Every structure is written in structure tokens, then in C-alpha cells.
């Protein structure tokens, strides 16, 4: 099963440390050393605050990803149980943004790139569960209230089993077969 990061709105305090950790994980520690205006800030998850909810929204790493299905250049791949965009191959067509039902993908201008017309390369950007960065997912690691959980197969089974037990405990039977006359 593909893994995903799930947030608990009862614990989230909306601080956005996860967003900074995401950028640090993908840009590297150089963001603390280089000029503040010299890089772009493109977190792969986004804090959403409604009247009643605060929670970061990010990719669910679907088992049958709509983004992967619609990508015309096959640059969305599954690596180590994560759905990952290969930004070097992305043509910026935005099909995946349209296909994703969760708003998990956005388009970003890449730092230090330049195309023929002088504009920056714009590519699709989303959570990759910190694949290849080592100590990930960074958002889960830094959250000060442990509001984020990396859900893997074991975790999923555990929760589903708990639910089944609860369901069994609550069961009553109303479908008595009527005796045939």
C-alpha cells in the first residue's frame, strides 16, 4: 500500500512549521545561508484554515492516481510507495492539477531556470513523502503537537481492525428470517 501523511485537526495549531520543514527538506539547508531573495519558497503541503478546521493539505498518494493516469509524458511515477512527480520531465501542462480531486498539486516556477523566452520553467509540485531526502517525511518529524502521522499498511490495518471491533461490539440483528408457512 502507498503511504500517506494524515493530519489530525484536533491537534493541529496551524503553526506552519511543516511547510518550512518541507522547503528545508527539498531545498536543503542552504536556505539558511543564501540570500533571502535568492530562492523560491515552494512547500509541497499547504495549511488550510476554515472557520472550524486547521490542517495542512497534501497528496494522498492514491492507489490509482488520477494525476498519473492523465500525465501525457509519464513523468508521474511510483517510487518507494509514494506517487512522485519527476519535475525534470514535467512539461507544465497542468493536467494533473485538474485531475487531482484534493487540490494537492500546484504549479511552481523553478529557481534558477530559464527558458528560450527568458521565463522560468514552471512545473507541477506536490508531496513526495520526502523520497530520497533521508530523514522524512519532514513534516511529520517537526510537528510540535504530533498532529501528523505517516500512515502505512500496518497503521491502516490497525485502524481498520479497531473499527471492525467497534462495529462488532455495536451489532444488533434485525433481519430475523420469517418462518415459512
Amino acid at each position: 500500500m502507498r503511504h500517506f501523511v494524515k493530519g489530525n485537526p484536533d491537534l493541529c495549531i496551524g503553526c506552519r512549521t511543516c511547510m518550512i520543514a518541507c522547503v528545508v527538506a527539498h531545498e536543503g539547508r542552504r536556505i539558511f545561508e543564501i540570500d533571502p531573495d535568492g530562492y523560491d519558497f515552494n512547500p509541497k503541503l499547504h495549511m488550510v484554515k476554515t472557520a472550524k478546521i486547521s490542517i495542512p493539505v497534501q497528496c494522498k498518494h492514491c492507489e490509482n492516481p488520477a494525476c498519473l493516469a492523465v500525465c501525457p509524458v509519464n513523468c508521474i511515477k511510483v517510487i518507494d510507495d509514494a506517487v512522485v512527480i519527476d519535475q525534470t520531465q514535467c512539461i507544465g501542462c497542468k493536467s494533473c492539477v485538474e485531475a487531482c480531486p484534493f487540490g494537492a498539486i500546484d504549479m511552481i516556477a523553478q529557481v534558477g531556470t530559464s527558458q528560450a523566452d527568458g521565463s522560468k520553467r514552471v512545473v507541477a509540485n506536490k508531496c513526495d513523502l520526502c523520497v530520497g531526502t533521508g530523514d522524512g517525511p519532514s513534516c511529520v518529524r517537526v510537528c510540535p503537537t504530533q498532529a501528523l502521522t505517516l500512515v502505512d499498511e500496518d497503521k491502516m490495518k490497525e485502524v481498520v481492525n479497531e473499527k471492525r471491533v467497534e462495529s462488532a461490539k455495536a451489532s444488533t440483528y434485525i433481519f430475523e428470517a420469517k418462518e415459512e408457512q
Partner: protein
Amino acid sequence: MGVPEIEDAKLIFNFGYNGADSHPIVQRRIVRAKQKGATIITADPRVTEAARIADIHLQLKGGTNIVLVNAMCNVIYNEGLVDQNFIDTMTNDYDKFVEVIKKYTPEYAEGICKVPADLIRKAARTYAKAPTAMILYGMGVCQFGQAVDVVKALGSLALMTGNYGKPASGIGPVRGQNNVQGACDMGALPNNYPGYQPVTNPDVQAKFEKAWGVKLSNKNGIPLTHVPHYVLEEKDPNKQIHAYYIFGEDPAQSDPDVGEVREALEKIDFVVMQDIFMNKTGEFADVILPSTAWNEHDGVYSCCDRGFQRIRKVVEPPKNVKTDWEIICEISTAMGYKMKYKDTEEIWNELIDLCPNFAGATYEKLEKLGSVQWPCRSKDMSDTGTVYLHKGKFTNPDGKGKFYTADWRPPKEVENDEYPLSFSTVREVGHYSVRTMTGNCRALRNLEDEPGWIQMNPKDCEELNIKHGDLVKVLNKRGWCITRCNATNRVEKGATYMTYQWWIGCCNELTIGSNLDPVSNTPEYKYCNCRVERLDDQKKAWDFVQNEYQDLRKRMGIRVVGKEAK
């Protein structure tokens, strides 16, 4: 109470306290308390994070705090939910208090504070019936013209239910800024020596005169918020302020009605600024003294729970940058009083020996225990400080707690036809205070930058034909600024909120400096009126914001590079 105790509270009553934005690390303890089963009641005009996770959210109208507190006391009194034994044996002035709260029935209160009467009843019953209850209050209580009254009323709410002198109870001011408790503890107040020893007390005066070998004044000084008055309005040159030495503070950004503050700073003969980075006050300084940052020097901070904690130097400061205490020593010596210390421990030892309540908090103890909450009177290692106060006895001379509340005084400047919205300053997580520090942090600047936001209810936005993200002009009779509209259901219709750290979206252009609490002299940052105007030419407005910001940074000598250097 101690901050760690928050996690053990059975009930937390957050009043005008938005921990998630002001102190995320404290909010973490509130969240843990909730996980452990605590009931949370939050009184706040906005849906803050603490309100969002609360069991009861009392969404009162700004500026009506005491009405709500009195009404809760009224319910507890009328329904017999008081701790009569505690009231009889441990307190004074209960009858006078009851006389005031009688009028504040939930129905009467609802008409003013807009919280449904039944919800007030529910909150009062829940608070009174909790085995132990803790009140946390913040700037939503303190930054009003009627502030100290509300603190005392909240204190009385805890008194009438016996919530003192035991763990995870009482009333806790979660202070506005880092180490503001320390500044007060160290006597950075116009009426106290270190350790809250009054300058008007002759015995105290004699003690400090002997220790320092100088004659000292027995007159109270001038509160910070009275400075503009003593510059702009005082006619007697002998009473006027002629010189202003400002350190670690940016009054041209942080004080209310910054237009008036600028006028005062222009007029003062001599201004010295001592800080780690350039700020708006620096524009008015005759002398700028660069000093070390929090991680470049040693010292002691006080937490809001009276806990002293050591801070340690972790990086070497740039050459020729001195610590605050070294600069003070050199200036004092140059002015004729030879002041010399070899390190912060020597200063600390002098200080604790002059302050009975701090006497036992040696460096050795701070190192060993991590935090020592005063009172800590004995140097013996067995005195580990005081986690919570008032155990079996209050600090008043007769050992009893004193009931007090007052009638409601509305805010001074309310909404009218010309300025139909209310306006309040708030905090946002990420940027600290006036941003002298965090504005220079790359990642935090990336998270939020100029010109900030004004939080508005979507219905107000619709009426003004403005959208989320639009630049808008916010104005009242004192001043104006340009900022972005944040359309959010977390605020009520008719109310607006801005954070006070933006140089361009500078909300203190609008705040009112003339309605101070009579006791604390704290300004009414949380209430004045305003109007929001739509800006038809958004591109022109953005250009204005960019140009103003770049000009300001250039004037301050901030090197402008990268994508903004056009």
C-alpha cells in the same frame, strides 16, 4: 501556576489568550491537556485555534470582557456554585463584590457582549463544577483601557470557586512578549527596583543607596506610554523629556498611534537606539549602538510563570558588537558612575542579594534544575522555588484574597458612520513582535511578508466589493495603511484585525494612544474604529507597496539584492 502544570489541568479557561499564535509551545501543552481529557473554555471574539478546539467558545464582542466575567460570577453566585468555606476563611470583600455582579444577569450581559445567555450559564456552571480550573489570560485582557479590572474580576472568579493554592489552578497571565516577566522582575518599571521593591519605600531606597553608593530618587518615574505627552504637551522644560535611550524596543513600530510617536521622536533632542538590527525607531536615532542577539550572550530569562532560566551564548558575535550589559557599564562609567562586572553571574549575584524573593536562585541552582520559579528565598539547594503561589495563604498582609470587580467601561473610540468597523491588533505565528528579529529570518519572511493582512468577515468584504488577497486601504482619523484583505469566517461581521509587525501594513498608524488603563498604563491596542476602502487600481497599489518597502530598506541601509533589486 507553572507552565508545565497546564497539561494537568482539568479545565482551562482561555480568556483573550491565543496561544497558537503568541506562544505555540504553550499551546502544545493546552492541546495535551485536552488529549488528557481537560475541558476547554475559550473567550475570544475570533475563532482562534484555542477557540476551535474548545468545548465552549464564548465569542464575545471586543471590549466587553468584564461584562462576560461578571455575568459568569453572577451565575455561580445565584446558583450556589460557590466554595463558601473558601470564601469565609480565605477572602475579604465578598459582599462588595456581590453587590457589583448582581446586575450582570446572563440576559443583561447578552445585550452587551453578544454571548447567548444560556451559553454564559453553561460556561459558568462548567467552570465552577470542575475539580480544579486554571485561567490563562493574554493581551486580549490587558490591552484595553479597562484591563486591570478584568484581571481582578477573573481573579475573583477563581476566588469564589476556591481555585487557588493547589496544583493546576489559579490564574496565569501568559505574557505578551518573551522575557517581559524578566524585565518586570528586574525592575525595568518606573515604580520598582528589582524584585518589585517600591522606589517610594524609604527602607528599600536606603538598601539600594548603600549597595550602589549613590543617592537615589524616591519618586516614581514616567511610564513608557506617557513619553509622547512629556515631549509634545509638557510645557515646563524641567519636566520635559529631552533624551530617550531605547533598547530592544521599536516604539516607532510597536507603540499605538505611531504618527504621534514619530512626532515625539522628531522633537526629542537626543535619541539613542540599541538593537541587533535596524528598525523604524533607528530612523530617528542620533546614535545607534549595535548589540548582541539572544544567542550571542549569556543571561537569565524569566518565563511568564516566574521561572528563571539560563540562556547561553552559542555563537560568537561580530567584532566590535558588545552585549547590552557591557554597553550599559561603559555608558555608566563614561557618565561618572564606575560600573564594572566580569560576567553575568557577578551581576546576577548582586541582584539576588538585593531581592529577598530571588535570593536563592543562584546560577548553580538554575544550572541544576533548569528553571527556578521565584519566590526562592534560600540559597540552600533544598529550596527549589515555588511552583504555585497562595498555598494556604495569600500575599496580602492579612493573608487573605481580596474580591474585586467593577462596572463596564466601554472602549473609548467605537464604530460610527464614518468609520463603521472595529479594529484590533493581534498576533500571528511565525513573526515575533515588531519583526526586528524574525523579519531578518529567511524562511519566516518567505512564509509571510509585507504588507500583511487585515482579517475581515466575508460579508463585510462582499459589501465593500473586495476579494481575499486584494490590497485595501485601512484608515481612521489618526492614520492609514495599505494591506491585503484576508476574508475569513473566523472573525465576526463588523470587526477587523491586523498584526502589528508590518512596516508598510502598519496597523499602529491607526491604534489609539490616548486610552490607557489607569493602573497598568497599557494602551487600548485592542479597540478603535476604522474604515476599509477598496483600491480600484491594484497594480498601482502593489507598486506603491513595493516602492515604499524598498525605499525604507534602502534608507535603513539594508542591502537589496535578488529578485527585488530591480
